[in-house]
C-alpha cells in the first residue's frame, strides 16, 4: 500500500526535482522548472475551477434569493392573518361597549345592579371579562361591577383616562392585575345630551387573545407574539419571553401595512421577521404583532440545505478531481518540455565537448605540420653531415661541420618551441580562472594560424589599445571562444584576406574584443539565426551548426555579450565584451539575484 502511494506520488512529482545534474543547467532553455511547474498548475487549476465556483455561487444565490422571497411572502401572510384576528378581537369588544352605552340609559349604567346584569350578559357573550365600571368626566368611578369594589376611586390623573378622553376609546397594554393574572383594559367614552361625558371601562382576561394569537403559529421554528411600542413583550413567546423580555430585533418603524424583513436575532441565527401594527377602526392599540421564523426551520429551506450539502460535497470532489487531473496534465506537459530541453542541452554539452576536442585535434594537425618542417631540416642537415662522412673524406678540420651542427641545434630548438607552445596551450585548458593578458593570449592563439595565414596570404592585424588591463576570467572558455571565432573568420575568407583583431576597454569594467574578417559575409536574414543551435549554412555533414551557439553560450557563461555585424561580400565582425573581473561579476550577480 505504502509502495503504491509512493509510486502514485512519483507520477505527480516532476522529474526535474529528482534529476537535475549541475553541469547541464547552463544549457537548458528554461532554468526554473519548479516555478514553471507551479505556475502551470495554478493557471490550469484556476482557469477550470474559478468558473465552476463562480457559477455555483451565482446559482446558490439565485436559489436562496427565491427561497427567501417565498419565505417572506409566507411569513407575511401569517402575520397578516393574525393581525386581522387580533384587530377583530379588540374591535368586537370595543363595539360591544359602544353598543351598550348607546343602547342603555345612563341611569341604568350607573345602577350597580343593572351593571352587574350587563357584565353577566357580556361574560355569556364573549367570556374572559373580569369587571365593568362607569367613570364620570371628573375621573371618579361611579359604578363598579366585578370582584373588587373600587367605587369612588379617582382616575382623573391616570394615563388611560386622559387617553380615552382624547380619542373616545382606549385599549391598554397587558398588565398584571391584583391577582397576578395578566389583563387588558378597554374603555369607550360617551357624551351625554347635556354635554358631559362618561367612560365605560372593561377589564379583559388575556387568555382568549393569546390563544387566538398562538393558534396561527406553525412549525417548531416559528414564534408569534406581541410587543408594545417600547419593545416590551406583551404575550407568551417561545424565544423572547425570558430574561429581559425585550426582543433583540429593533422596534420597527410604524407602518399601516404588514411588513417583513430578513435579519439575524441576538444569537446570530438568520430569521425572517414580519410585523404589523394592530389598529382597530375605533382606536389604535399599543400592540405590534411580531412573527418570527428561523430560516433553517422552514421545510423548503431544510430541503435546500440538504441539497446544498450534497452539492457542496459533489463540488468538493469535482474540484479535487480537477486539481488532480490538472496537476497530472501540467506535470506531464512540463516533464515533456523538460525532456526535450534536457536532450537539447545534452546535445549541446556533448557538442561542446566534441567541439573542444575537434579544435584541439585541428591544432595538433597544424602543430604536426609545423614540426615537420624543422624535422625535415634536421633530417637534411644530419643527412648532409652523414654524407660528408660517407661521400667526402675530408671531414676532419672542416668548419662547415660545426655550422651544420648549429643548424641541427637550431632546428631542434624550433621543434622545442612548438611543443612548448602546444603544451602550454593544453595546460592552460585546465586552469579555471586566472588573471590573463589578452595580448599574450591572442598572440599565442594567432601563432597557430600563422602558417595558414601565410599560405593563403591573409594578413593578420592585432591592435591592443594602450591601458587594456589583464582580465580575470575562465581561460579555457575564452580560448575556446576566440579559437571558434578566428576559425570561422579563416573559413569565411579565401585568399588575400584581412583579419583584424582589436582589443580595448569599454567603460571601467569591461573589455571589448572585435574580430573582423574580409570574408564572404553573412546574409542579412541569417544574422538573427546564427547563434541558434543547429543553424548552419554549410553543406550537409560539413557543420553541426553548433559552433556559434556554443560560442554564444560560453560568452554568456563568462557574463559577457557577443554581437555580430556583417555584409555579404564585405566581411563579418564579431564583437565580444567581457567583464574585467568575472568572479566579482558573479558575486555581484549572486547578491542581487
Amino acid at each position, binding site marked *: 500500500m505504502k509502495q503504491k502511494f509512493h509510486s502514485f506520488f512519483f507520477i505527480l512529482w516532476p522529474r526535474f526535482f529528482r534529476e537535475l545534474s549541475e553541469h547541464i543547467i547552463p544549457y537548458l532553455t528554461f532554468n526554473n522548472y519548479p516555478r514553471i511547474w507551479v505556475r502551470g498548475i495554478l493557471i490550469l487549476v484556476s482557469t477550470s475551477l474559478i468558473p465552476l465556483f463562480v457559477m455555483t455561487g451565482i446559482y446558490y444565490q439565485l436559489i436562496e434569493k427565491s427561497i427567501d422571497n417565498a419565505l417572506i411572502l409566507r411569513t407575511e401572510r401569517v402575520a397578516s392573518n393574525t393581525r386581522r384576528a387580533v384587530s377583530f378581537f379588540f374591535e368586537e369588544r370595543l363595539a360591544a361597549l359602544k353598543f351598550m352605552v348607546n343602547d342603555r340609559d345612563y341611569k341604568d349604567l350607573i345602577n350597580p345592579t343593572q351593571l352587574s346584569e350587563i357584565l353577566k350578559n357580556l361574560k355569556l357573550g364573549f367570556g374572559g371579562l373580569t369587571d365593568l365600571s362607569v367613570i364620570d368626566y371628573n375621573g371618579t368611578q361611579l359604578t363598579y361591577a366585578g370582584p373588587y369594589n373600587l367605587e369612588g376611586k379617582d382616575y382623573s390623573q391616570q394615563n388611560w383616562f386622559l387617553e380615552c378622553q382624547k380619542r373616545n376609546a382606549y385599549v391598554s397594554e397587558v398588565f398584571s392585575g391584583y391577582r397576578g393574572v395578566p389583563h387588558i383594559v378597554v374603555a369607550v367614552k360617551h357624551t351625554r345630551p347635556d354635554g358631559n361625558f362618561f367612560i365605560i371601562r372593561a377589564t379583559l382576561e388575556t387568555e382568549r387573545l393569546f390563544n387566538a394569537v398562538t393558534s396561527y403559529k406553525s412549525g417548531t421554528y416559528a414564534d408569534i407574539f406581541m410587543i408594545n411600542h417600547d419593545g416590551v413583550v406583551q404575550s407568551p413567546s417561545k424565544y423572547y419571553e425570558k430574561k429581559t423580555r425585550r426582543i433583540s430585533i429593533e422596534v420597527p418603524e410604524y407602518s399601516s401595512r404588514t411588513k417583513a424583513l430578513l435579519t439575524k436575532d441576538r444569537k446570530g441565527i438568520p430569521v425572517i421577521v414580519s410585523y404589523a401594527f394592530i389598529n382597530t377602526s375605533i382606536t389604535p392599540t399599543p400592540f405590534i404583532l411580531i412573527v418570527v421564523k428561523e430560516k433553517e426551520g422552514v421545510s423548503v429551506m431544510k430541503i435546500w440545505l440538504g441539497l446544498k450539502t450534497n452539492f457542496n460535497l459533489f463540488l468538493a470532489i469535482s474540484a479535487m478531481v480537477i486539481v488532480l487531473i490538472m496537476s497530472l496534465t501540467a506535470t506531464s506537459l512540463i516533464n515533456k518540455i523538460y525532456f526535450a530541453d534536457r536532450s537539447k542541452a545534452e546535445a549541446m554539452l556533448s557538442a561542446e565537448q566534441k567541439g573542444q576536442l575537434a579544435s584541439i585535434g585541428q591544432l595538433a594537425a597544424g602543430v604536426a605540420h609545423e614540426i615537420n618542417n624543422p624535422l625535415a631540416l*634536421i633530417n637534411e642537415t644530419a643527412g*648532409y653531415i652523414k*654524407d660528408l662522412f660517407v661521400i667526402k673524406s675530408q671531414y676532419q678540420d672542416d668548419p662547415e661541420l660545426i655550422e651544420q651542427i648549429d643548424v641541427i641545434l637550431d632546428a631542434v630548438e624550433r621543434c622545442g618551441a612548438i611543443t612548448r607552445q602546444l603544451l602550454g596551450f593544453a595546460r592552460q585548458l585546465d586552469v579555471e580562472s586566472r588573471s590573463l593578458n589578452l595580448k599574450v593570449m591572442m598572440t599565442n592563439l594567432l601563432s597557430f594560424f600563422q602558417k595558414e595565414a601565410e599560405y593563403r596570404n591573409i594578413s593578420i592585424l592585432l591592435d591592443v589599445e594602450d591601458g587594456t588591463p589583464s582580465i580575470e576570467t575562465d581561460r579555457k572558455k575564452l580560448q575556446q571562444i576566440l579559437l571558434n571565432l578566428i576559425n570561422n573568420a579563416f573559413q569565411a575568407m579565401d585568399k588575400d584576406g584581412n583579419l583584424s583583431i582589436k582589443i580595448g576597454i569599454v567603460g571601467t569594467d569591461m573589455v571589448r574584443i572585435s574580430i573582423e574578417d574580409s570574408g564572404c559575409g553573412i546574409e542579412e536574414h541569417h544574422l538573427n539565426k546564427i547563434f541558434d543551435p543547429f543553424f548552419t549554412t554549410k553543406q550537409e555533414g560539413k557543420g553541426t551548426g553548433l559552433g556559434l551557439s556554443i560560442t554564444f553560450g560560453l560568452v554568456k557563461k563568462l557574463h559577457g555579450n557577443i554581437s555580430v555585424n556583417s555584409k555579404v561580400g564585405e566581411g563579418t565582425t564579431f564583437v565580444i565584451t567581457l567583464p574585467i573581473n568575472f568572479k566579482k561579476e558573479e558575486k555581484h550577480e549572486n547578491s542581487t539575484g
Partner: protein
Amino acid sequence: MKILLVDDEKKFASMLAKRLELRGIKVDYFFEATNAIQEVENGKKYDVAILDVKMPGMGGIELRRKLSRMDSDLKFIFLTGHGSNVDYKTGVSEASYYLPKPLKINDLIETLYLVAPEKTT
C-alpha cells in the same frame, strides 16, 4: 640530370641541394615560386621540379601549372610537411609524385629515377 627545387624553408632547400649535388645531381634552388618562374622564363631548362606544396604566396600546385605551360616536358615531385589526406590526394590527382617531409634521401633519388629514367645516365 638538372633539378629545379622550390621551398620556402631556406635552410632545408639549400641543404637538400647540397646533398643532391654530392650525389652528382645538379640543383638550382629557389625560396619563392616567382623566382623559379623567372628563371624558367629566362630559358633555363630542367628535367625535374621538386616543389613544396604549401608556400606563402604561390603554392606548389599553382607553380606546377605555370611551369608545365612553359615547359611541357618538365616532370614534377611534390614535397609536403602536411601529412594530411587532402594534400596527398591533390598530389595524386595532379598525376605527380608526392613525398612527405621529412624525407629519406634515397626515396627522393629513387623517385627521381622513376620520374625521369632517360636522364639518369
